């Protein structure tokens, strides 16, 4: 009886969560005049014009491609450097380990508005402006600390006897890490991949500052609809609906890992 009550609560909550998203979907299927003209619970004159515009206008769909490129680069880079680091934090005591860990977290704490200018200057110095790599690298600033943090939790859940046994059996560190250890924390890698994807995908300030045309992200393309004759709500909503799709696919792939959970030990 009690379980049923909490399930009802969950369903109610999920419905409430879906309302703004439903409204976005609703708007995306209506013309701009329709949206601002009258209230409608569902599109009375449904149109796919907004979606057609996005899929046919190069400046729109290239925004998606750019975002997907730098987000994938960021995910790969973050995981590649965070995996060994998280292993070090979960297995060893070393000089300054705790301070290093907290310092990594401080990189999520600076207000970006003013930091954007030196960022732009720094990346110009290396000739990185308007490249996908620049955005991917800038996003590691907040994604790598998070990745290390989450992965460290998963790794601490793996007993150290496994490492010891493997070393006694004559495994080298790289071979042990790749063939034995990584498969054990698959769930953690999946969860981390989702979070790094998510934060990089929705970040706007760095992505917009470091790009001009060639690597312009979708979120920045969307802000352009503001300057035209007022705001094109329908087009913006359609673009919003499409931004959900890649992330929804990512979470679909990692859902089983998510459900397995992570044994976060002492951080």
């Amino acid at each position: 009886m009690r379980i049923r009550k909490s399930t009802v609560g969950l369903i109610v909550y999920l419905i409430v969560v879906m309302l703004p998203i439903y409204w976005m979907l609703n708007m995306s299927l209506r013309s701009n005049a329709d949206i601002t003209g009258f209230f409608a619970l569902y599109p009375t004159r449904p149109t796919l014009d907004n979606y057609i515009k996005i899929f046919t206008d190069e400046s729109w769909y290239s925004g998606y491609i750019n975002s997907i490129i730098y987000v994938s680069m960021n995910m790969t880079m973050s995981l590649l450097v965070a995996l060994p680091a998280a292993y070090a934090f979960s297995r060893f005591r070393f000089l300054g380990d705790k301070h290093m860990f907290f310092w990594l977290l401080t990189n999520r704490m600076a207000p970006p508005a003013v930091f954007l200018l030196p960022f732009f200057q720094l990346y110009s110095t290396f000739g990185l402006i308007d490249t996908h790599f620049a955005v991917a690298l800038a996003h590691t600033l907040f994604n790598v600390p998070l990745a290390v943090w989450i992965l460290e939790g998963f790794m601490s859940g793996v007993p150290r006897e496994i490492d010891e046994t493997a070393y006694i059996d004559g495994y080298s560190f790289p071979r042990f890490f790749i063939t034995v250890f990584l498969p054990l924390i698959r769930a953690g890698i999946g969860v981390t991949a989702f979070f790094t994807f998510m934060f990089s995908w929705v970040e706007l300030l760095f992505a917009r500052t470091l790009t001009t045309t060639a690597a312009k992200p979708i979120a920045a393309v969307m802000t352009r609809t503001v300057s035209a004759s007022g705001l094109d709500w329908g087009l913006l909503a359609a673009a919003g609906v499409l931004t959900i799709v890649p992330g929804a696919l990512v979470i679909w792939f990692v859902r089983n890992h998510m459900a397995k959970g992570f044994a976060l030990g002492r951080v």
Partner: protein
Amino acid sequence: MEKWHDNRAWFLVLPVFLMVAISAIIPLMTVVNYSVQDIFGPGQRVFVGIEWFREVLGDSRLHDALIRQLIFSGLVLLIEIPLGVAIALAMPARGWGVSVSLVLLALPLLIPWNVIGTIWIIFMRPDIGLLGVLINGLGIPFDHPTAPLDAWVTVVLMEVWHWTPLVALLAYAGLRAIPDAYFQAARIDGASAWATFRYIQLPKMRGVLVIAVLLRFMDSFLIYAEPFVLTGGGPGNSTTFLSIYLVKLAVGQFDLGPAAAFSIIYFLIVLLFSFVFYQALQRIGTGDKPGDRR
């Protein structure tokens, strides 16, 4: 289990250190440099010492923004953390319901932040928005563009809608890591649902909850895009949070020096709170109580 002492572990951390250090330290130094100078343009700058810090610290609009920010982040944490944990507890442990609720929960997290504000503008409109029409239909006068309280409710509601799923996802992942044996033992002992939560689930979720509280604190304290798009900081200055005021200063008036001084103070405040939270949360329930001297 004692960890192995080995300073060679530094080699495993080095890539992370190098990758983050370049992007972190050089801009930080530059902002500190900006904060003590009056900058007119490239190469034209005058050292002014602590003038900007004095100006910013004496700015009453900044004090107001800081108080608003503290109330906002406090409210957000008080609502999102318990709500997120409750949702995680209500979620099924296995079956198709898991996939469905996980995917639905994650959707709000995946929308770019400026789009979230834009969608909520329409969503809350009393004439053409779903929630706006609904609220007006109930006979409650609600007008977020002109009434400060309504603007606050709207911004907090949007924030809770947007980010509670993050807490829920983290808490859920933490819950699933608890071995079934614990629950069986609790059942044999005839433990109540509350006792199971208090003595098994909550302690086991501590690690993820540290992450959730800190992430939510840092991100809500730095929040910019969503409330700015939705209310522009208004009506008046009623939803002008720290970042919104900072951008007004940095971009609107193009005062790089004061904006840099502001950024450093802002960063120090976030750092202080995060450090205190981090230390406190690590110690709750570990038996390492204050005053327990060794």
